[in-house]
């Protein structure tokens, strides 16, 4: 009896120690992840002359702004016109989302619900297109866009991004679970394929559509190398390029640079946070189910 109790007690103590250790590690990792952001926010709220003043020695003053001000954000949106790249990126992303969802859902629908010649090789092509990363084709793609006279136009930013192998794959996976009988009965009722697609299939596919929208949005918001080479003009500049240009042009406007980084980071977080589940599940499905 006592032996058993002792054993249990030890187990419990071991478990508690284990849990404490887990919390310590969890917290340390969380600090490493959050500190740069916290520090950037804090620095963006300092006047410029204060930015490096209190860095050494390491103390509370180094981390918290002493005279907090939102002047950097004000300048960013007035003098620096940082709203232009934000607006550009959102315009590109929204058009991309609308066209991308239609085009990729169409393809996913065909792969999920039809039998046709060359289905297999065409699907291999889709998979291949998402295995070949964008950076590797950015330079040859530039010469193509150049030949089409699309450099510095919305076409350059949109055309290569609309068809998306990963989105096609996700739509296909989702549509496969929609029972054939629903579609068949609609065909018998004489509905055309467009009606079936837009009135029956898409309304049943809200989750995968949200995932695809988020993926496309993130793709455009984070894209850097492509807009860097294909859309340089000020009135077309995308957000990440605007941020790095800012860093290179205004090397001493530290608080504004921090403010620009925070604005660039916070917008996608606001979009993703409410839909975190859809995004994580959608993206990881591609990795697990493949």
């Amino acid at each position: 009896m006592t032996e058993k109790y002792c054993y249990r007690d030890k187990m419990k103590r071991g478990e508690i120690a284990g849990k404490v250790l887990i919390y310590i590690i969890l917290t340390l990792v969380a600090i490493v992840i959050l500190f740069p952001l916290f520090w950037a926010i804090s620095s963006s709220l300092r006047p410029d002359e204060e930015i490096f003043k209190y860095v050494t020695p390491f103390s509370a003053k180094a981390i918290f702004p002493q005279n907090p001000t939102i002047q950097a954000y004000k300048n960013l949106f007035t003098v620096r016109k940082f709203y232009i790249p934000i607006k550009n990126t959102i315009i590109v992303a929204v058009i991309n989302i609308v066209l991308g969802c239609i085009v990729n859902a169409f393809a996913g629908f065909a792969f999920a619900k039809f039998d046709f010649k060359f289905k297999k090789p065409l699907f291999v092509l889709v998979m291949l297109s998402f295995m070949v990363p964008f950076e590797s084709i950015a330079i040859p793609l530039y010469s193509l866009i150049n030949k089409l006279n699309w450099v510095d136009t919305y076409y350059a930013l949109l055309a290569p991004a609309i068809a998306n192998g990963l989105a096609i794959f996700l739509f296909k996976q989702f549509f496969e679970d929609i029972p054939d009988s629903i579609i068949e009965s609609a065909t018998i009722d004489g509905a055309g394929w467009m009606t079936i697609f837009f009135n029956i299939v898409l309304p049943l596919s809200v989750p995968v559509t949200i995932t695809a929208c988020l993926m496309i949005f993130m793709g455009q918001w984070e894209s850097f190398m492509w807009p860097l080479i294909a859309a340089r003009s000020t009135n077309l500049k995308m957000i990440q390029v605007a941020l790095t240009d800012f860093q290179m042009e205004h090397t001493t406007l530290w608080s504004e640079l921090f403010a620009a980084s925070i604005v660039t980071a916070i917008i996608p977080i606001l979009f993703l946070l409410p839909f975190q589940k859809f995004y994580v599940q959608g993206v990881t499905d591609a990795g697990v189910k493949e």
Partner: protein
Amino acid sequence: MKKRIVPYMFILPAMVLLIIFKIYPIFIAIIGSLFDSGFGGSKAFVGIANYLRLFKDGVFWQSLKVTLLFNIFVNPIQIALALFMALLVNEQVKGINIFRSVYYVPVAISMTVAAVIWGIMLNPNSGIVNSFLGIFGISPQPFLTSQRQALPSIIAITSWKGVPYWMMFLLAGLQGIPKSIYEAAKIDGCNKLNTIFKITIPLLKRSLAFVVISDTITNLLLFSPMYILTNGGPNMSTNVLMYEAYKSAFSYMDMGRAYSMITILLILIFIVVGMQTRLLKADY
């Protein structure tokens, strides 16, 4: 459902766009590497002359060396950390959902933002990291400004951004493992470390294979941190092949050289991914 043309109508737009903008550029690169050409100018077929020129080019070899060195370290580090973090947030303790959400934060943050913020934090003279190290009596480090520390610094920065992303896939894999297996292992007296290596990792093979391959492809082509933070320096110590190809195309206007480097990168990806696929015996 055998309407003959209907399926083709549905896939047509996507296929046309994929072929023109994703597949065709690969051929532009491969074929272009056999020509001597400036932008849009006259082209002359030169066979493998561009490649021969590269093989005699010290900068090319240096860039290839940096690319391989970077990848030999960054991929195992990121995958090990991602696995560690996934196991960590898969623990069933109170408040774990909050930690999970926190760990996902860098997924939503672009590489550019990460590079800009970390770049200032790692400033040798007035960076917060050196100030922090000062508490422990460590003298200020040069980080990105030194030939020896620049590449490790970039590895750290890209890992801050990349590890949480790969963790997301591994966590999804972990959550797919039935709990009953762990319970059985516990009853059989299997300790935690044994459970991880003998049960969890083998069952996670599919997700791991995906992460290993995707992470490698991403890092073989990594470009933005070098562009933003070091311009390939100091002294070419972070001059990866992708960055050199970019400079070749847009600074030196030497498309033949850029295309042959892109082709070599594509071959490199093909070889590495092929080897990984075989080793991991994943059926892709």
